[in-house]
């Protein structure tokens, strides 16, 4: 009875409840605000570091004798084409944040498999959406298309074998990274998508190989790598930080193995592409973040 009385007559009690509720509601709102996911952009920028200075790449037409770059063996070269696949992107943060990009392959298109093409500057920008709010300071990704991209069957989008120009028909699967150009030291005779037979001094590196077959020397050339950022990318609704990654084409030929353009310069098989494939992780680097 007493209590009932209390309820009925104690105005301050009601205001306490009201206040608590209000605080609860406000803090609730704040909480869910914080959890609203946002976007993050990962930018893959192809460069050449010459004398310690980062330079944007210049593509030349097949057959050009204008050699703007020098490899680790002091052999000059130029570039007609540079394309590679990025997939399985994963972001992690110091407080346990994890975002794994969804990879899906079907006849109508692909998700989570990106084709970076130097000839198409916008292709280097990958926008990931629905990334849980939080801070991220680590990225992991794979260069090359994994088994699930092949066993799904004929696919569309970035994997459409008619348009991607990254498909090996005789050894079905996708080329992870394709480089074509000319070098003054090459004897020529290479074949490529752009560097055609007859173009003198051609060099072609079609690096691929996703099969792992027990008991064979079949070479798996896809590479998965992780990078830690020196700052953090803050993700939440309304913010779209950009993580800037660079790919140094000079290091593709020197980071681990020195590639000599005088021989093995017409690479079209997994086994021949192994030395250059091993240079891929060392050719990528984290550069900076635009918050």
């Amino acid at each position: 009875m007493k209590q009932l009385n209390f309820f009925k007559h104690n105005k301050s009690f009601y205001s306490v409840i009201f206040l608590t509720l209000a605080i609860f509601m406000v803090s609730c709102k704040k909480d869910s605000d914080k959890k609203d996911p946002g976007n993050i952009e990962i930018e893959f920028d192809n460069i050449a570091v010459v004398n310690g200075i980062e330079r944007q790449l210049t593509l030349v037409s097949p057959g050009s004798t204008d050699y703007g770059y020098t490899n680790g063996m002091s052999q000059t070269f130029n570039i007609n084409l540079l394309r590679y696949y990025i997939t399985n992107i994963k972001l992690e943060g110091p407080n346990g944040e994890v975002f794994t990009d969804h990879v899906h392959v079907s006849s109508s298109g692909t998700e989570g498999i990106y084709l970076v093409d130097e000839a198409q500057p916008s292709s280097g920008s990958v926008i990931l959406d629905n990334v849980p709010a939080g801070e991220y300071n680590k990225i992991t990704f794979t260069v090359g298309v994994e088994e699930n991209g092949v066993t799904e069957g004929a696919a569309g989008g970035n994997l459409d074998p008619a348009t991607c120009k990254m498909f090996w028909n005789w050894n079905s699967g996708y080329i992870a990274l394709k480089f074509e150009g000319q070098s003054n030291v090459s004897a020529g005779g290479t074949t490529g998508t752009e560097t055609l037979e007859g173009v003198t001094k051609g060099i072609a590196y079609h690096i691929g190989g996703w099969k792992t077959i027990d008991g064979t020397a079949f070479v798996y050339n896809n590479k998965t790598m992780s990078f830690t950022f020196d700052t953090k990318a803050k993700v939440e609704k309304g913010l779209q930080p950009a993580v800037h990654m660079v790919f140094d084409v000079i290091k593709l030929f020197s980071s681990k193995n020195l590639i000599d353009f005088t021989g093995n310069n017409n690479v079209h098989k997994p086994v021949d592409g192994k030395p250059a494939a091993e240079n891929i992780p060392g050719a990528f680097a984290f550069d900076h973040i635009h918050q």
Partner: protein
Amino acid sequence: MKRKIALLIGATFIIFSCGKDDVVTKTSPYSLIRPDYFPEITYPLENNPITKEGFELGKKLFNDPRLSLDNSVACSNCHVKGVAFTDPQHNPSVGIFNQIGTRNAPMIANMAFQSEFLWDGGVSHLDFVPVFAIENQKEMGEELHHVVYKLNKIPEYAPLFKAAFPGIDTITSPYMLRAISQYMLLLVSDKSKYDRVQKGEDVFSASELTGKAVFDQKCAACHSGALFTNYEYMNNGLDLVFMDVGRELISALASDLGKFKVPSLRNIMLTAPYMHDGRFKTLDEVLEHYRSE
């Protein structure tokens, strides 16, 4: 009154959208039947369910020479229906501009049960085999993107693609390739006397049993099971020096030099010439090779 009109509009809308939906989604499923003594189906049918419309489209594409550079060579030129989809006349197969290839066209049957294709097993999904055929300089010499471009320009194809793959608005390569696969998947060879015996509907004659005993002893290690192949890569002693490196091209393993996929022996009476390069014209020559080995 107003209400009635609204209702009427609503109703027509429903009827209309229903009708539209019906037109868009109607495909009739076809099923691939696996005899129980066959190996498991390896093709991922869930990604590409076979339908009447897809099968018919695949069949049309398979027989259409416009898939080749000079519009002269269809898949069916080298994979002829009457002879278990092999090439009876040519040794090896002849492609565009009458160029001679280096390998003999294999039979296309029971593809649903196979997981690696070509004599060296380089292609690991049936959908991708036509890419090899189309882009091979000595077969059809075309570029896949150009074939797709041509198909989009041929008016008869648009409705067929839409019927087989409801919802698409342009023809792209994955749909073309999946349709061709649907056709090839249903080419199942399971009506021979061997099959009738397996099903308990027939018995082998005495001479057939003698042959079977020899076969089981001498041949079945490689030509095993209901499809008469273990799908491995073997050297059956044809050469000491290899013009064609075979499986080594794919596996990069020196010990695979000159090894080829053990071929199925179904329809073997029809599939001459024999071996990866079609060197033997008759089965007698084949047996002579094995006898002298």
